[in-house]
C-alpha cells in the first residue's frame, strides 16, 4: 500500500512539472497585453516596453520558465502583477475559503446522497421515483438561480445568515459556520442530486449481486447485509464520483463565490486568468494539481480499502 502511494506521489510530482510547463507556455501566448493593461490606454510604447522588461516579458519563454521553476523550487512563487500580493500568501488566504466550501459540500453530499440513494435503491417504488425526480430537478436547475433564491430568501429576507463575506474558522467557529452555510447549501443541491443517483445505481447493482443473495441464504439479517456488505461495495463508485466532484469544486464554485462575495480560489481563478496575471495563475495551477493529485490518491486509497480487488490492480 505504501509503495502504491509512493508510486502515485512520484507520478503526481512528474505531472506537476508537466502541467506547470504546459500552462506556462500557454500563458505566454501574448494576446493578453499585461503591461498595457497595467499602464492603461494612455501609456506610451516606451512605458509599455519598460514595463515588459520589468516583468521579464522581454525574455524568451523557456528562460522565463526556467527562472520561474528555479524560484518555485525554493518556495518563491513570485508576486502578482496586478495587485503586488505575494502569490503564496494570496493563495494561502483564499484556499481555506474554498476548502471550507469543498469539505462542507462533500460532507453534506456524502451524507444526504448516501441516505437518499440507499433509500431509493432499497425501497424502490414510489420512494425511488421521488428521489429520481428530485435528482433530475436538482441537476437541471440552473445553479445561479438556486443560489440567487437562497441568498434572497435566507439572507436578504429572513436575515438568518449573512449575504456576503467570509469569517475564517480560526477567528470564530460560529462566524465561519454562518458565512459558509448558505454557499454550501447552494452548491450541495446539484451535488446531492448527482451523487444520490450514483449511489442509487450502485446500491441497485450491488443488491442484484449473487453474493447478496447468498449472504441472505446464510441467514444474515437484511439490515446487516445492507449496511455491512451492500454499502461497502456500493460506496466505491460513489467515492470516485465524490472525489471528482471535490476536484471540480476547486475551480467550479466561481458563481457561488461571486454571489456570496467569498474570496475563494474559483473567483480568483477567473479574475486573474482573464487578466493574464501569470504568477498568480501559475500558483493556482500548482495548487490545483496538488489538490487533484492528493484527492485522487486519497480516493484511490479509500476505494482500495473498500474494494481489495482494486488494490491489486
Amino acid at each position, binding site marked *: 500500500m505504501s509503495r502504491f502511494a509512493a508510486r502515485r506521489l512520484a507520478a503526481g510530482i512528474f505531472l506537476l512539472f508537466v502541467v506547470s510547463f504546459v500552462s506556462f507556455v500557454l500563458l505566454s501566448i501574448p*494576446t*493578453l*497585453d*499585461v503591461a*498595457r*493593461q*497595467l*499602464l*492603461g*490606454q*494612455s*501609456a*506610451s*510604447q516606451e*512605458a*509599455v516596453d*519598460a*514595463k515588459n522588461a*520589468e516583468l521579464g516579458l522581454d525574455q524568451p519563454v523557456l528562460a522565463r520558465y526556467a527562472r520561474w521553476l528555479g524560484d518555485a523550487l525554493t518556495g518563491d512563487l513570485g*508576486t*502578482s502583477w*496586478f*495587485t*503586488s*500580493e*505575494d502569490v503564496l*500568501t*494570496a493563495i494561502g*488566504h*483564499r484556499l481555506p475559503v474554498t476548502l471550507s466550501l469543498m469539505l462542507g459540500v462533500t460532507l453534506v453530499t456524502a451524507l444526504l446522497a448516501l441516505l437518499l440513494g440507499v433509500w431509493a435503491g432499497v425501497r424502490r417504488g414510489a420512494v425511488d421515483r421521488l428521489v429520481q425526480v428530485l435528482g433530475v430537478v436538482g441537476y437541471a436547475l440552473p445553479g445561479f438561480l438556486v443560489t*440567487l433564491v437562497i*441568498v434572497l430568501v435566507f*439572507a*436578504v429576507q429572513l*436575515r*438568518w*445568515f*449573512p*449575504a*456576503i*463575506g*467570509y*469569517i*475564517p474558522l480560526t*477567528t*470564530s467557529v*460560529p*462566524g465561519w459556520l*454562518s458565512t459558509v452555510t448558505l454557499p454550501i447549501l447552494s452548491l450541495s443541491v446539484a451535488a446531492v442530486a448527482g451523487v444520490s443517483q450514483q449511489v442509487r445505481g450502485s446500491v441497485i447493482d450491488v443488491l442484484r449481486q449473487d453474493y447478496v443473495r447468498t449472504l441472505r441464504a446464510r441467514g444474515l439479517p437484511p439490515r446487516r447485509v445492507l449496511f455491512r456488505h451492500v454499502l461497502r461495495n456500493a460506496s466505491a463508485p460513489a467515492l470516485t464520483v465524490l472525489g471528482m466532484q471535490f476536484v471540480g469544486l476547486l475551480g467550479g464554485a466561481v458563481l457561488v463565490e*461571486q*454571489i*456570496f*462575495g467569498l*474570496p475563494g480560489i474559483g473567483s*480568483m481563478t*477567473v*479574475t486573474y486568468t*482573464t*487578466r*493574464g496575471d501569470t504568477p498568480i495563475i501559475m500558483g493556482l495551477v500548482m495548487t490545483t494539481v496538488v489538490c487533484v493529485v492528493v484527492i485522487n490518491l486519497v480516493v484511490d486509497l479509500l476505494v482500495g480499502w473498500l474494494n481489495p480487488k482494486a488494490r491489486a490492480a
Partner: protein
Amino acid sequence: MRIRRFPTAGSAGVVVAALVLAGCTGAGGGTTGQSDPILDIATMTFPQSLDPVTAVGGALPFFQATYDSLLKREADGAYRPMLATEWTWDAGRTKLSLTLRGDVEFDDGTQFDGTAVKANLERFKASSGANAKWLSGLEQVEVVDATHVVLHLGAPDPAYLYYLSDAAGLIANPAAFADAEKLKTAPDGTGPYELDASQTTVGTKWVYRRADGYWGERLPFDGVTMTVFDNETAIVNGLKTGQIDTAVVQDANQQAALEGAPGLTTTPIDFDFQGILLFDRAGVVTAELADVKVRQALNHAIDRKTMLEQIRRGKGVVTSQIFGTDSLGYDEALDSHYAHDPEKAKRLLAEAGHADGFELKMPRMTSIVTEAIASSLKSDLADVGITLTWVDVDQGDALRRVFQNREFSGFVMNLGQQASDWLVVKDLVLPGTFNLFGYTDETVRALVPKIQTSSTEEARDDLRALNRNLVENAWFVPFYRMTYALVTDSGVTAAPQSGMAVPSLYNYRPAV
C-alpha cells in the same frame, strides 16, 4: 470577541457590520480611548499596489488612507491646503511655488520637507505608473528650503493643481524608496490611517486603522475597511443586509434592486459617460469618416433616448458633448445637439456621397458593450445604411489593437468626465492616447494655446467655443452620462467627489 447574531441583525449599525466583515475584535486602534465607528466600503476597483506611483482614479481612496497629498481637493473640486499650505503661479504660468508644512513627520521620524517633495515628484515622473505622463512637463523641482519648493514646467499646464491633489501629489517617505517592492504592500506615508497588515488580504480586503498622532484633521472613523467584490450582486446584497456601509453601484439594474430598500440612501454620481470615441476623423482606417457629414450622420443615427431608457433604465442624461457638468467648458445646450433623426442622417450620408452606406468595424469588449448596446447600435446604424461590424476583443487585446496597432476607427468606452478642463483637452483633443491618429482642425489649433496659457477661469469662453467646435464637427459620438448610485446605509453619509467616480475618503461622515 463579538459575533453578530443574525436574526437580530435588522438595524445593525456600522460597528457591528464592521465586525462581521472584518472578522476582528475591538474596533480600530483603540489607543485614543474614544470609540468612533468603523467605515465599511465595498468597491469593485482595487489598487495594483499601494505604491503611490501606481495610484489611479477609482482606487484613490486606498491611497488617501495612508498618504496625504500636497493639495486637498474638496468634494466640490475646490483646492485646499494639505501638505502644502500655499501655492502661487508666476506670470508665465510655468513656475509653481509651494509653501510646505514644517511640522509633519513620517513614522520613522523622517521630516516631511522640500527634499521629500522633490524625491516624490521625480520618482512619480520617472515611474511606469499610469499617470506618470502628467508630470512629463516637469523640468525641475527646485528646493528653496525645507518648507519651500518651486516646480519648473516646460510649458504652462492648467491642470497642475489637480495633479498635486491627486495621484501625483501623494507623498511617501523617501526613505522607503530604497525598497520599492516593500512599498507596494507596506505604504509609508503621513496619512490619517495605517494599513493593518494582519487583517488585510491584498486583492480582497484592505483594513486600515487610525494612525496615532495624525498631524491633520481627525477623520470621524476609527478605521476603514475596503472590500473588493467582483460583482455588484454581492455588493447590493451586502448593503441590504447591512454588512456594507457604503458603495457606488454602477449597474442600472442593481440600482433598481436597491430602490425602496429600507435604511439606504442614494445620492447620484454623474461621472462616466458612454459613447464612441471616434479616432479616425482623418479617415485613415475608414475613409468615409473623413467627411464631417458622415460623422454627423453617425450622431443623428443613434437613438440615445431609447438606449438610455432601455439600457440604463433612464439612469443618466443623454448628451452630445464630452465635457462634464463640473467642467467650465460644459454647455447644457450641447447635450441635445444631435437629435435622433435617421432621415437627416441618410440625407447627410447622401450629401457626402455615401447613399449606399459603408462598413464600420469596431472592437467590442463585452464588459462594456453588452448585447443590448451592441445590437441596438448595429440596428440604429443599419437603419441609415451603415453596416456596423463588431470585432470581439478581450480587454488586454483591445488596448493593444486599438491604441497600439490602430486597427479601428472608433471604440465604445465608458470614460470619466474630468473636472479639470485641461485634462479633458489633453486626453481627448490633443494628439495622444485618445486622439491616436493626431487629428486636429483650425479652431482647435487656435483655441488650445490660449486655453493652455490662461488661468482656468479666464479660459471659460474659449473652452466653451472648443467644446462647441468638437460637437459640431462630430469628433465623438457620445451617448449619455451615466448616473451611478452612491449608496449609504443609515449610519453613514457621503458626498460625491467632483471629477471622481467614487467619493474621496474625506467625504464620509457618520450620520447623526
